[in-house]
Each structure stands twice: as C-alpha cells, then as structure tokens.
C-alpha cells in the first residue's frame, strides 16, 4: 500500500504531519538541542585548583646568576656589567623576592635552557624556587639579550618566561633592557601588578642654584633637570599618562600652577588664578586637577579641568586647606590637610565636597598620599606636637577602613612628603637624617630604607603612575 503512495503524496503526508504536530516537533527539537548543549558543556574538562589560607606563603626564593656572553664581541663585557647590576638591583628592590645570595650558586651557571642543572639549583645550599638566567651578545652594533625564568622545582615543564630583546649596543640600552626583563619577571610572579623598574620619580632640587623640577629613574639613576625657570618651583605632580607635569611656581603674578609638557619639553599654557595657588593633584583618569587656592582670601580646595577651565570650589570653612590628593582607585574621594581646628590635620571628602571626615585627631599631620589600591593613606605626622617634645616628623600609614595606624620611620629628624609607587609596594619620601634634605625610598612596610640622591637639597618626590 505504501508503494502505491507516490513520492508527492508522501511529501504531502509529511508536510501535513509537520503542520499538524508543529508544537510536538518544536519541543522535541528544542529538548534535543538542550541536551546536546549540556553534553558539550559537561564534556569541556574543567581544571580545578584547590588551595587556601594558612599554607604559609613566603617570599619567592629567586636565583639570578649573571647573564653570560653569547659570543666573543669585545663590547659584551661592559654591557654585561651594566645589565647584570641593573637586573640584580631591580629584582632585589621589588619587595617580593628573596634573592639567593650569589655565594650559594653552583659553580656552573647556565646561559641557555640546555645548560640548566635542576638539582644544583633546587637543592641545598641554593634552595631556589625560581631561576632567571640568559645571555647577551653584540652583533654589529645591535645587542641581543635572551632571558628565561625557570621554575626549578618543576623539572618536566619549568619555563615560566622566555624573552628576547634587541636594542642598540649602548649601556643605556642595556640598562633599559634589564629594567624590561625585571618588570616581566615581577609582573608574572607578583600577581599581575606591573613592576616599577621603568618608572620615574620627579622631585625638587636646588643644585642648579634655584629650586627647579628634576626627574630620575626609580633607582636614582639618570637624574636630570626639567625646568629652567630660575625661580622657586615646588610640588611636581606628573599626569597619569605621563605626558604633562603640573607644579606650582613663584611667577611674576604670584604663586601659580604651571604645566610642563613632557612630550614638547617646555611649558604649556594653563589657567592663571588670583591669590596663592599650590599643590596640584591629578585625578586618576587625568581629567581633573585639584589644588589649593587663596583667590578668595582663605586657602581652599578647588577642582578644575585638565586645561584649567570649569573651576569648582570644594571647601568653604575658615582655615587653610591645602595638599589635596585623589583616591587613585575610585577617583571619587579627596584627602587633604586642613587647619580649620588649629594644627593641620588630615581629612577626606567625596570629590564633590560632601561627607567630610577627619582622619587624624592630634598632633601635626601633613602630606597625605593615597595608595594605588585605595586602601591606605600615608602621611607625615608629628604625633605629639609641642615645645620640648621629642620626635620629629615621621611617616605613618593608615588603613582607611579599619583606621589602624602603623609608624614606618623611627628616625630622629624630619621625614616628609611620602609618595606611593604605582605597584603599591614602595614609598619614596624626603628625609634629613643624613644632614641634608634628600630623597629616600623604602618598602611599604618600612624596611629597606635607602637614599636615592646625595647632591644638593632634594625634596618633594612624586612617583610616576607607570
């Protein structure tokens, strides 16, 4: 009987069937589609990590043997010297490594992956967890550096990083390459936070005869003068994108905020205001600048656009209001110093001027600095201020949520103007403990304090954002 039903009739039957049982077919197809999707999802093998707190995380033991020369070029030796010293310094200063002392290294150091002997590195006495090694060679005026980072406790697949850099065969390029490689290692092992080896510090120095704005590498190298105004210039603040530097300067029209372009290497125009205008501060997105101005007689905090327009006043209480800083994480709060109750104290407010809260309750507190993750406030504090009281300015750090305070410097002498590094692990500040005002740096827990400058009088450091 079926054979008698022609093809056309069968198609007609099928079509009829589909139209009559449209709903049943639709739901069946939908159900099957869902089932197949679920099967596919389950089939994607999921990788799991199970771990937790209390497992004793300590600093990574990192071994950094000297890089070797990859060929016989005579220029290698000088470049290697600069490169190795810079790389060691960067990793030592990072604050997250425990560099294994070179006296514990095995006699043979590797220059490329084939030469690595794992047992020599992960056993006593070296006991390293990570190994950074590589080679450097000059090839007709260009320098090629190869660097690896190995997990020496994982013999089957040790490579964490493998990089090659090509640059000019000069000591500056060798230094820059070492900074780049160190930053890569710090980025990988430090949890995605970029290293600071390529950052700059801007500061005030009087070694030219006048207080001018200077810049240097984060490790104190390459100190050079930026402004040549032959007057007093203070409180440099670099913009988040590094293109412009705002500072206050004593011009013929009084203290004004001036803008220096890092790209053009000269001053660019910025709005002038009446009164005394000091301490500019960039918001985290670079769109606004907060500063202190006494254009109405009493110094108050104002906010303007990055070109100087749209001025808005934030504070209106009698008493000096100076040194504003923005919360770099949210961009929605400002901390500043106010003398409205007498001695200067630190306050915070929302960036529209509301919700004013007092942070310090005694003494003489100045120079707030907000950490990049928005959790901590640094400031300089004379906790027990008064005639005959011992103790000078010290740097303190406060956890904003819990309001707990820790003292970071314990020297006699004045420690002032603290400023955070962009990775939130280092602090730069000025100190006169050596007899003259110099720029010092330390880790965020107060350890490893060391000077960056020695000549002249150097003050008011500001760390770049990247």
């Amino acid at each position: 009987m079926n054979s008698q039903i022609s093809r056309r009739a069968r198609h007609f039957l099928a079509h009829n069937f589909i139209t009559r049982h449209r709903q049943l077919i639709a739901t069946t197809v939908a159900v099957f589609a869902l089932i197949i999707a679920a099967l596919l999802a389950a089939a994607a093998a999921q990788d799991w990590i199970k771990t937790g707190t209390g497992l004793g995380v300590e600093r990574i033991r990192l071994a950094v043997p000297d890089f070797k020369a990859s060929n016989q070029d005579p220029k290698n030796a000088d470049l290697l010297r600069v490169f190795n010293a810079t790389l060691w310094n960067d990793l030592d200063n990072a604050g997250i490594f425990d560099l294994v002392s070179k006296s514990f290294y095995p006699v043979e150091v590797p220059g490329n992956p084939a030469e690595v002997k794992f047992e020599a590195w992960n056993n006593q006495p070296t006991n390293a967890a990570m190994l950074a090694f590589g080679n450097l060679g000059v090839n007709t005026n260009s320098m090629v550096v190869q660097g690896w980072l190995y997990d020496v406790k994982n013999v089957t697949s040790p490579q964490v990083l493998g990089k090659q850099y090509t640059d000019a065969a000069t000591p500056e390029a060798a230094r820059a390459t070492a900074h780049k490689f160190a930053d890569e290692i710090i980025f990988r092992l430090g949890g995605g936070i970029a290293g600071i080896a390529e950052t700059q510090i801007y500061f005030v120095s009087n070694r030219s005869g006048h207080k001018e704005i200077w810049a240097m590498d984060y490790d104190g190298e390459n100190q050079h003068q930026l402004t040549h105004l032959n007057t007093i210039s203070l409180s440099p603040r670099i913009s988040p994108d590094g293109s412009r530097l705002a500072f206050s300067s004593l011009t013929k029209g009084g203290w004004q905020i001036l803008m220096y372009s890092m790209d053009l290497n000269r001053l660019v125009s910025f709005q002038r205001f009446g009164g005394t205008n000091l301490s500019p501060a960039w918001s985290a997105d670079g769109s606004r600048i907060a500063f202190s101005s006494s254009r109405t007689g009493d110094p108050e905090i104002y906010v303007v656009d990055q070109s100087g327009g749209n001025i808005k006043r934030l504070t209106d209480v009698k008493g000096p209001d100076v040194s504003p800083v923005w919360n770099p994480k949210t961009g929605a709060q400002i901390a500043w110093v106010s003398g409205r109750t007498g001695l200067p104290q630190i306050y915070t407010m929302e960036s529209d001027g509301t919700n004013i809260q007092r942070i310090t309750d005694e003494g003489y507190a100045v120079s707030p600095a907000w950490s990049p993750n928005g959790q901590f406030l640094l400031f300089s504090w004379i906790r027990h201020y008064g005639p005959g009281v011992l103790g000078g300015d010290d740097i303190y750090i406060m956890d904003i949520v819990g309001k707990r305070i820790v003292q970071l410097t314990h020297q006699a002498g004045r420690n002032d103007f603290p400023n955070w590094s962009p990775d939130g692990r280092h602090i730069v500040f000025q100190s006169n403990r050596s007899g003259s005002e110099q720029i010092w740096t330390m880790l965020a827990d107060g350890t490893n304090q060391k000077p960056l400058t020695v000549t002249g009088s150097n003050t008011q450091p500001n760390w770049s954002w990247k």
Partner: protein
Amino acid sequence: MEANAEIFFEHDRWSRNLAWSVGLHLAITGAILLYGFFGPGGHGSAWGAGGGGDAMGVTLVSTIPLPANPQQTQNIVANESKGLSQSQPKQKEEEPEAIPIPDKNAKTKPKPKATATQRKPEPQPEPEEEANNVVPFGEGGPVSGPYGVFSANGAKGGFGFTGGGGDFGNRYAWYVRVVQQKVSENWLKYEVDPRVSDARRVYVTFDIHRDGRPTNIQVEQSSGVPSLDQSAVRALARIDTFGPLPSDYPGSKVSVEFWFDYKR
C-alpha cells in the same frame, strides 16, 4: 476517500511511535547525564592526566612481577615533589675536636673551607596569626577527595593540588602560589565579627579568566559565621587580577576552590 482514510491511519501510528521513540531517547540521555554528574569521578578528577606528580616508571612486560602486597608507608607527603616550601636544613655535624697526629708520610688534606658552616640564616616565613599547626605548602596531609574527609594524624589542611587540580597545579605551581598570596593579602580579618574566635572553614569557589580576573565568586560551603563568609567573598572581590593565566595553558579559565581558616 480511501487514500485519505489511510493517511489518517498513518498519522496516528506515526505519532504514537514517535512519542515512544523520543521518550526512550530522552530516558537514555538523561541516564547518561545523571551518571556523568553524580557517578564516581567528581569534579573532572578523572579527566586528563591521572595521578599527577612524577611520571611512573615503565617496565618491560616480561619482567612485571606479581602485584605486590600493599605496603603501609610512613610517608605523609602526597607526592614526592618538594613544593615551594623550604625544607629545613640538616643540622651540621660538629667537627670532632681531636687533633690528628701528624704523620710524616701521609698526604695533608686541605682543611674544609670555613664558609660552608656560615649558612645564611634561612628566612623564616612571616608568622601567621593563625594556628601554629599550619602545614607548610605542598607538604600536606594524606590526599583526600572532596572536602571534609581528613583522616586523623593531627594533619590539618594542605590539599596541595590533588585530583581535579592535578594538571594545572603541578604544571603552574608558581601561579597557584600567586593566587594564594594575593587572596591572603587582601583578606581583612577584622571584618569578621569580633566575638568569633574560631570557626569552620569557609570554601569559596571562583573562576580565573584568561586575563586573570576572578569571577563567579560563590560560597561553596559556609563556615556558619555570616561575617566570615562575607569577608572571604570581599577579599576576592577586592582583587582586580591575579595576572594573566600562563600563556601556554590551553584552557580559557581555571576554577579555584579556596578555603579560609579563621582563628583569632
């Protein structure tokens, strides 16, 4: 007409048979899915490389011995890898005080270098406020399956990367270490209700995407203390990134099960 009557007859037969067929297929598929989710194996622990740790030795077929009786070992370590913790150095034996009688004919041995004894003091891990029965990383107690099943021996915690985490954890131990450190750094213990002095573990799961962002933060097993659970979730929410996943890792994300031990 006749043809029409046959058509209707065909329709009836089709739909009943079709319904049976669909139902049977659904039942079989459902059974397979249920077995896959709830059967033995758990969170993908049977996928991929089994066992983790060192490779197993290969022996020739002809020399395979009979299966040995299972030996009880005293070894409490999950596998032979040293993990990232430092082993304690062996105590240096004192050189005997005896002065050797000089022998005219004997060769004089050079004295062992004094530098070997001046061992750089091993940097101590930062003391945690928690219990001092903390097990160093990687040297955990006996391996166990999904949470909660600890055998005694006093050994606490320390999964290492067992079972499901096998492949990623063994290959990228340094990344797991970064995750641990960041979460521990961002956990503000004072957010927990100050009246609590001790609590069960809270297990939180989340995914880490390719760029290192943690997402899908969920409390897998509560500790019973809501403020502790909240502080654990907030610790993870505070983290922007753990750093990009290792570039030669093929997956698009990794799942993490993280536990928080609170002890005031």
